[in-house]
């Protein structure tokens, strides 16, 4: 190691290579740049030309300097310069790395990783071996074991696989493992702690000290973990409970609690602050009851430990309530049935299921409500008895049926018949309720005076009647009685309300008190506690050390259902969900951590540091990166000097601009710009006569088509009654063709084949009176049917319904639609024009397809100044005139059809008339 202020070279002997720089300088100096190669036709004139001055080109000084800097940079980089390096590790023996990888270490795992890397880097530079000892077991039955002597590279590999585990550390076992460790030389031990104290801390630190020297790394107070306990359910509310580490120096800030649903949605976020001096903060979770059932996970925001996550299962959910007696909604007066009132009272706070007794038991409800209307069979009663014994709660309402034949499924013995508190033959008035006793579950609910009971069933007086009574009338008559049933009083409840659930006997069901009473009863239930205690719960989804839910590994062990409450989190039972998808139970780390005390009282002589980054920077990659950039630059300069960038810069910029524009054009191709011929264009096309041409995609051709049809439009406007507005380019695959009487179609050899849909559209167009002029533009190449355009046309029109064609006969309408003509020249003359055989009588004998090769658009095309754009061959301006005349005839033909053909018969008709 060579030290220059804050800079240290790890392999300083490589700096000797700087001595070869003068040699490189000399070599670069004497070698002229390579000549560039030029191909030149007039080379013969260059032979043996002697220059007047012969000064060979030399490498420019700045290039020389750059290359020397490049070489120097590579040499410096290979010498591994380090900025702000850590001090040397004490001792000469191996380096022992003790790593706390329990749940609390996940609080700031990347900082731990960084620390580990730095220790390994330092050991690497000093050539020392390493021993790694994690303090938490990773699989059941394993004890923390120190690794053998590792080379730094192996230690790095081991470190990559080291992750925090979601259970506490086992430092006692780590200490035991260290007892047997014998090392040569004085080792240096580095203990990366998670900051939590336990009994084994002091012995372990002393043991490490005895191996040589020890350094203990403690997390700062801000990095100490919080522990989230499973929330307690208090009535309808959940109480979150968060614990922080005891013995921290200063106060810690508030934490944010997040409640998320199964699909990861954030349901709720809430701040919870710690009172000064308190280590536990509790706060009710302010969650609307509708959302509460969706919550499966509570977590402390920003902390990625298994302890900062509490998973929720059925026990924290709203209870499903079964309402016995299906079919009541079909009763004649559904608004007066008991089912209606019960349903309305229960639905806002519970999940209500309707059904018969056995179905409801099957679906594992927590509470069942039995109105008077529901008759029970003996079988039902036995099943309900068993269910109550397991923890179910049955709420029963009295009524005329029960009054007439009381059955045993009641908490108290009932008198036969009912008590009527009102009526013409009664002295008593309807009676209000008394205030609830302190030991009643309804204690605290306000009793509205307007709630009056008119009729009720009466309990037989007995010794325990008072103990079983939850609510009374003002005169002390029991109104709600309940009994806990089941083995040694641990089962569920059987509750009887001595009046009806409907408005027949009282107005209680239409009061808010009714709703509150039902809520209180439902809250007493245990949830679906029906797991018999012997079932095993298999691991379903487990938390990993960073608080993520993952599929369980092979090492997690199932839990007995009854033992879940007592199960301790550890390698056998990682926190997470157990059971099946339908009925899963959560095991949380919070219940298994008793103490969280700050690690302190370390033995003297132990160096203590923290996880703050050391700021050591290895300059090698940066230097190499700069050297690479300089090398690329040098190559570019060398190529430029040799003339390999032939394109001058200004033109390159132009090219770049063209490329950019072309790319932009590619990104927003023509169809997007044309946007499928919007309504506006359709209206315009329908409001005038437009000549249409097929857009081929080849710009020159399309421009000629546009100019040609524009020129023809001008001629039509000047000479005929056709007031053509101009030319429109159409895409046959997209645009509506119905507006155009004539479609001019220049055929290119490069044109893509038509799709099925396009061919259908074209056939439609032709059937409905459209005309297409195919121009193969082959005449310059000899015309005929062998030209490239004609060959392309043959494949292009493969699916089109084209009747047999023939060359234009001398008496065809095209020869006399406006002008009399027999030839149809365009830019070139002489090519035949093919039309449909008139005898086919399709379209009333008007040819829907006209094919020629004379490149008419070029002949019609005029420039902006009105001059013809292209010469016509061979005939000169007379030929152009004839080309225009053909255009006029063609448009007339497409617009008027065979009108002129009829005139052929005029002499014959006149002759007949004359007779």
């Amino acid at each position: 190691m060579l030290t220059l202020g804050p800079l240290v070279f790890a392999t300083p002997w490589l700096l000797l290579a700087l001595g070869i720089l003068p040699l490189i300088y000399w070599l670069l100096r004497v070698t002229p740049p390579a000549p560039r190669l030029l191909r030149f036709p007039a080379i013969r004139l260059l032979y043996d030309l002697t220059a007047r001055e012969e000064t060979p080109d030399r490498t420019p000084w700045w290039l020389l300097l750059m290359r020397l800097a490049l070489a120097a940079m590579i040499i410096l980089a290979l010498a591994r310069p380090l900025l702000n390096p850590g001090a040397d590790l004490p001792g000469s023996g191996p380096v022992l790395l003790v790593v706390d990888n329990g749940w609390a270490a996940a609080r700031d795992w990347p900082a731990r990783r960084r620390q580990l890397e730095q220790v390994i880097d330092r050991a690497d530079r000093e050539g020392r071996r390493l021993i790694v000892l994690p303090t938490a077991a990773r699989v059941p039955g394993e004890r923390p074991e120190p690794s053998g002597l590792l080379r730094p590279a192996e230690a790095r590999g081991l470190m990559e696989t080291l992750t925090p585990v979601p259970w506490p550390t086992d430092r006692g076992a780590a200490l035991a493992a260290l007892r047997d460790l014998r090392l040569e030389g004085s080792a240096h031990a580095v203990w990366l702690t998670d900051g939590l104290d336990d009994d084994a801390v002091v012995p372990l630190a002393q043991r490490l000290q005895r191996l040589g020297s020890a350094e203990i790394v403690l997390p700062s107070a801000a990095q100490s973990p919080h522990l989230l306990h499973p929330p307690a359910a208090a009535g309808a509310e959940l109480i979150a409970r968060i614990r922080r580490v005891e013995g921290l120096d200063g106060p810690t800030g508030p934490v944010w609690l997040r409640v998320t649903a199964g699909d990861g949605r954030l349901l709720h976020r809430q701040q919870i602050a710690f009172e000064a001096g308190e280590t536990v903060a509790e706060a009710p979770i302010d969650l609307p009851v509708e959302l509460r059932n969706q919550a499966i996970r509570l977590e402390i925001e920003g902390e990625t430990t298994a302890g900062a996550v509490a998973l929720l299962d059925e026990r924290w959910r709203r209870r499903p309530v079964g309402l016995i007696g299906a079919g009541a909604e079909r009763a004649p007066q559904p608004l007066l049935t008991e089912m209606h009132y019960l349903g309305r009272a229960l639905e806002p706070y519970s999940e209500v299921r309707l059904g018969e007794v056995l179905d409801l038991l099957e679906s594992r409800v927590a509470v069942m409500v039995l109105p008077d209307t529901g008759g029970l069979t003996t079988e039902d009663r036995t099943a309900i008895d068993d269910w109550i014994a397991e923890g179910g709660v049955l709420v029963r309402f009295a009524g005329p049926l029960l009054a007439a034949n009381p059955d045993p499924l009641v908490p108290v013995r009932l008198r036969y018949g009912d008590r009527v508190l009102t009526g013409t033959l009664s002295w008593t008035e309807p009676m209000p309720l008394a205030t609830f006793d302190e030991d009643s579950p309804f204690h605290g609910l306000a009793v509205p005076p307007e709630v009056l009971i008119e009729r009720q069933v009466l309990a037989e007086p007995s010794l325990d009647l008072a103990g079983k009574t939850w609510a009374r009338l003002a005169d002390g008559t029991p109104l709600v009685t309940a009994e806990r049933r089941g083995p040694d009083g641990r089962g569920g409840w059987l509750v009887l309300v001595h009046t009806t659930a409907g408005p027949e006997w009282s107005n209680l069901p239409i009061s808010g008190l009714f709703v509150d009473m039902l809520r209180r009863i439902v809250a007493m239930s245990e949830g679906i506690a029906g797991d018999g205690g012997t079932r095993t719960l298999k691991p379903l989804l487990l938390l990993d050390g960073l608080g993520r839910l993952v599929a369980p590994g092979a090492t997690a062990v199932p839990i007995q259902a009854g033992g879940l409450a007592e199960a301790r989190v550890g390698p056998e039972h990682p926190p997470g969900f157990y059971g099946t998808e339908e009925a899963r139970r959560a095991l949380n780390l919070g219940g298994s951590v008793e103490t969280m005390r700050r690690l302190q009282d370390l033995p003297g002589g132990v160096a203590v540091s923290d996880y703050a980054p050391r700021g050591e920077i290895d300059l090698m990659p940066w230097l190499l990166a700069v050297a690479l950039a300089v090398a690329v630059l040098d190559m570019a300069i060398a190529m430029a000097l040799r003339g390999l960038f032939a394109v001058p810069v200004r033109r390159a910029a132009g090219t770049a601009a063209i490329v950019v524009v072309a790319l932009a054009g590619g990104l927003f191709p023509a169809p997007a710009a044309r946007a499928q011929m919007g309504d506006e264009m359709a209206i315009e096309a329908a409001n005038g006569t437009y000549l249409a041409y097929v857009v081929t995609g080849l710009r020159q051709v399309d421009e000629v088509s546009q100019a040609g049809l524009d020129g023809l439009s001008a001629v039509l406007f000047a000479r005929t009654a056709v007031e053509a507005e101009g030319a429109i380019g159409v895409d046959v695959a997209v645009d509506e063709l119905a507006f155009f009487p004539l479609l001019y179609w220049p055929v290119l050899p490069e044109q893509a084949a038509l799709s099925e849909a396009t061919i259908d559209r074209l056939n439609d167009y032709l059937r409905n009176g459209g005309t297409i002029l195919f121009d193969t533009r082959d005449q310059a190449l000899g015309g005929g049917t062998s030209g490239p355009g004609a060959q392309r046309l043959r494949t292009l029109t493969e699916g089109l319904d084209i009747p047999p064609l023939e060359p234009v006969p001398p008496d065809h309408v095209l020869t006399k639609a406006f002008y009399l003509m027999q030839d149809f020249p365009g830019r070139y003359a002489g090519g035949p024009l093919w039309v449909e055989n008139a005898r086919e009588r399709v379209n009333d004998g008007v040819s829907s397809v006209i094919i020629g090769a004379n490149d008419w658009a070029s002949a019609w095309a005029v420039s902006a100044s009105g001059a013809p754009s292209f010469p016509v061959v061979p005939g000169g301006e007379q030929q152009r005139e004839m080309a225009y005349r053909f255009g006029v005839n063609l448009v007339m033909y497409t617009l008027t059809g065979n009108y002129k053909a009829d005139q052929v018969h005029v002499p014959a008709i006149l002759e007949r008339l004359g007779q």
Partner: protein
Amino acid sequence: MDSDRQTTRQRAEALVSTVPPLLVAAERVAATVAQGVHGRRRVGTGESFWQFRQYQQGDPIQRIDWRQTAKTDTVYIRELEWEAAQTIWLWRDASPSMDYRSRRDLPSKRERAEILLLALAILLSRGGERMALLGGGHMATTGQVAVNRILQAFESSADTTGTDADGLPGSEDVPRHGELVMIGDLLSPLEAIDKMVGRYVNRGVRGHMLQILDSTEVTLPFGGRVRFAGFEGERETLIPRVESIREAYLDRLQAQQDGLRALCRSAGWTFSTHCTDNSPQTALLSLYAALSQEPVDQPDARVPAAGG
């Protein structure tokens, strides 16, 4: 390729669209000069009327126009317009060195040569002249057929039709008293060119040379250390500093052109040069002038027919 062929032709057509049809001045009346379709604006054998002139001693009596003579006192001879066509042989250098262009926006020398040749052919076909590509293997013909044949020859034989190793016309026969148009870079040794010209002059062939050069060949704008390579397997040469030999190169080029000019003058041929960064129009006009042997802007010199 077909569309390339078409555009070459169309560019040639655009080039000639402002030039009247070319009538080659035919000086030597010979057997090889076939009967043409157009008048030569002078007296000769033909079918259309040219002028009446007074009978002179020695005129055959059969040529007296009796109807005209009967109107007046003088005896008139009816003279017809001389209708004849000249045969033009066209040649362009097809050697690989012609495929050179210094900038992408310039045409190669070969493209320029072919456009000029084609434009000339179109003009000749309008004038009704007979023509053929030298070495193309076809008889001289008139009209569009000849143009198409030349076009096809350009297209189909991208090899070296009618061009020998020196980049000069091969030893194909040109019938006596024909006309030859040569377009090429003409950078071969002057002795070889001299020999070739002598061969044709001996057969009474009249020639027109157009030297086409790229702009870099005219200016040698390179600098620094350059290794030059040729197009036709010439040996490479390394120039340490091109700037230092530019003067010498330009002198040599000048000497070559002077030699060519002197050679043509002595053979009675015409010589002109053309650089590809100039408009082809000027080169075409100079060829036109050389072939028609009349100033390009000369007004129509036809003498109105007396008594017409």
